[in-house]
């Protein structure tokens, strides 16, 4: 059994208003060293697969078919 950890964020070219709002709030907290905030989604999946590569492929299919919308989002998969 593998665990896939997927991070989905808006593509870098797209303004992330939630991240921007959080960034403003962090600045109000005095955390001025925080230079940029991006807010996304985190998805964890337990995957029954014969190998790490197979688990990655399954997770990638899940991302491209449902979890992420590649028109506006990027995803990053880590398999443990």
């Amino acid at each position, binding site marked *: 059994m593998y665990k896939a950890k997927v991070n989905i964020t*808006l593509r870098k070219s797209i303004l992330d208003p939630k991240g921007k*709002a959080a960034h403003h709030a962090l600045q109000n907290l005095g955390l001025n060293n925080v230079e940029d905030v991006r807010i996304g989604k985190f998805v964890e999946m337990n995957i029954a697969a014969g190998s790490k590569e197979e688990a990655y492929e399954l997770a990638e299919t899940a991302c491209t078919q449902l979890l992420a919308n590649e028109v506006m989002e990027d995803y990053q998969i880590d398999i443990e």
Partner: protein
Amino acid sequence: MSKKIGVIVFPGSNCDHDAYHAMKHVMNVETEFLWHKDTNLNGVDLLIVPGGFSYGDYLRSGAIARFSPVMNAVQDYVKEGRPVIGICNGFQILLEAGLLPGAMLHNEKLRFVCKNVHIRVESTHSQFTSGLQKGDVLKIPVSHGEGNYFIEAEGLQNLEENNQIAFRYCDAHGEINEDSNFNGSVSSIAGITNEQGNVLGMMPHPERAMEPILGNTDGITFFNSVFNELHIA
């Protein structure tokens, strides 16, 4: 044979009855609901994918509804060149289903916006807008939190070249400016069609602007255009 309109009902649709009422009781056309588990569309002559919050907008608006059984029938219906209108969440579902290009982001200012807005007819090259004049201004209500239409530059160019931009947000005089583009949509886009012109997605709700008692009847102007071209009613 009399014409028939179908309104799809997903779990979480909440403008399905508005659309049904507008079609059946205001426009006086035979109308029926189609459940999201139906696998055929009963030969309807126009399909409406209504607004709401299908599947609670989990993951992304429209992302889960795309996998409802009825959507296979919708894909076939579109391939046959038959007409589909997606309103608000219906637009989002059609985007997620790949029947229209682009995607919806959260409104730029992150607020849910529910008010009358003005939209300008940008193209009369579709089955839905050919009864309108380019530049016509309609007052139609919007009600959405994720209506910030996004498409990359190349896609936008395709939309423009193929006359696929049906409506843009504008002010009461038909002027397009930063204030009129209240949700931050690329190029102030409020509605688009597919390349073939038989699928329309729009964020504003014409079915909510159908009766004088509600203070706005511009929705009738829109549906008259649709029905005229499709020879409905």
